[in-house]
């Protein structure tokens, strides 16, 4: 099977062809939204970070914003900064330029305020749009796909239906030579010993166990009992009792493929195959991290239903709960509740999801895209100063 992708100068292939107007800091987020609103085909994102950050925290924010610019779904990037922030707009632009795609920078304090920046920005973005329209498309193999697998709004049907089916689809992508990501470190608690057995080497297995241990040590050090957030009130209403139960159901979406390595949040993998990314269980932050790592499409499994999308990547929603499948139909792409109803097998729905991935890669819009969902949140790992 193949898909008609957008070829990028560094050889990567996108499934979408966005012109991204990227705010390096919260202070330029409104300006970028105003620029993107004036040019059809341009997108911005609501960056709430980028200033008063230090150390690992500012590095992670920089890596994530750069990852969005570098993602192959993006044809060209206009970075807009304020001028005095922690995430320097010119440094951010340099990281994106490594991909060979067109990148320009506007700094509001240098250009002279909102009105002039928006005017100049529209001019640049219109030019980028003309460039994007000329980007060659080519039929390529599924080995060019990078798919993030996420869950959110889980209930007990997630572990019975939507996660196992997504796992089948993830395995099919890896078998076709592609790349998939599992993420969400807290949602490995109680299940890490099972995943570690699938690691490509004892070292990677140990790294996986250690990633979870580091997270749990942080809870212990600060005396945080994270029940109330994990499982969430909605998870509990849906029948999930403990984090262990949630984790054991969650890891099904990772399929059976060997785990090649543990990636940092927003880190790009070096080879093709299946990876675990260290991220929080907060779905929107986890989605953002996997897209920054290069995912062109996300699979998003749910029990209770969720509208979440992304500014630059299609998000395929897969639901396991029959009642919620009908209530949340507007937001759902694949109905895995047929498994719970005994009407389809996990394998059959897994194949449906795989076929949906191929269609979406070929341009079919997901419900989240049709409805204009642009959820975006960067995971913070330090305080604001």
């Amino acid at each position: 099977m193949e898909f008609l992708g957008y070829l990028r100068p560094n050889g990567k292939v996108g499934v979408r062809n966005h012109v991204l107007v990227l705010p390096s800091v919260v202070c330029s987020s409104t300006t970028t939204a105003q620029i993107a609103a004036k040019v059809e085909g341009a997108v911005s994102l609501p960056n709430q970070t980028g200033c008063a950050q230090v150390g690992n925290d500012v590095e992670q924010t920089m890596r994530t914003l750069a990852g969005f610019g570098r993602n192959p779904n993006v044809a060209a990037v206009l970075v807009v900064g304020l001028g005095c922030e922690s995430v320097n707009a010119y440094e951010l632009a340099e990281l994106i330029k490594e991909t060979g795609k067109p990148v320009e920078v506007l700094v509001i304090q240098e250009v002279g305020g909102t009105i002039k920046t928006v005017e100049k920005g529209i001019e640049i973005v219109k030019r980028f749009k003309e460039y994007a329209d000329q980007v060659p498309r080519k039929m390529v193999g599924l080995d060019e796909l990078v798919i993030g697998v996420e869950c959110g709004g889980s209930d007990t049907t997630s572990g019975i239906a939507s996660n196992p089916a997504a796992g089948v689809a993830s395995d099919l992508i890896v078998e076709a030579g592609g790349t998939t990501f599992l993420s969400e470190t807290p949602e490995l608690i109680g299940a890490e010993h099972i995943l570690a057995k699938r690691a490509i080497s004892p070292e990677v297995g140990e790294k996986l166990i250690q990633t979870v241990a580091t997270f749990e040590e942080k809870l212990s050090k600060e005396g945080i009992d994270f029940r109330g957030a994990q499982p969430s009130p909605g998870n509990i209403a849906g029948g999930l009792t403990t984090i262990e139960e949630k984790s054991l159901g969650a890891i099904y979406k990772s399929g059976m493929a060997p785990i090649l390595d543990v990636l940092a949040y927003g880190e790009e993998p070096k080879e093709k195959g299946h990876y675990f990314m260290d991220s929080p269980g907060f779905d929107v932050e986890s989605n953002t991290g996997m897209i920054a790592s290069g995912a062109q499409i996300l699979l998003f499994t749910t029990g209770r239903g969720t509208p979440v999308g992304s500014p630059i990547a299609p998000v395929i929603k897969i639901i396991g709960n029959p009642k919620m499948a009908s209530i949340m139909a507007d937001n759902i792409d694949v109905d895995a509740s047929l498994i719970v109803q005994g009407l389809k097998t996990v394998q059959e729905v897994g194949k449906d999801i795989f076929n949906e991935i191929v269609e979406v890669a070929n341009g079919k819009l997901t419900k989240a895209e049709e409805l204009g969902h642009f959820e975006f949140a960067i995971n913070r790992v330090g305080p604001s100063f």
Partner: protein
Amino acid sequence: MKQIANAVIMYPDDNVVTAITDLSKGEIVKYRVSDQWFEVSLIDNISFGHKLAVKEIKAFEPIIKYGENIGLATCDISAGEHVHVHNVDSVRGKGN
């Protein structure tokens, strides 16, 4: 007669099953392990997606689902009883 399951077991040795329809006290829960059918009479009302014990579970014994420990019973639990946050406690993630 064709039997219809109203609960699912994830692994053969699990001591809980998950209801796949809303169930009422006194109803018979039917679930299947391979080709063998099992039944348990319900002591509580059970909502779709919630769990019930299929064996007696003593206080501090593990709740087994997916063939793994998902937490410990905080009191004795009878077969047919609702198993959830009121009678199960996590072992992990509590900051201790």
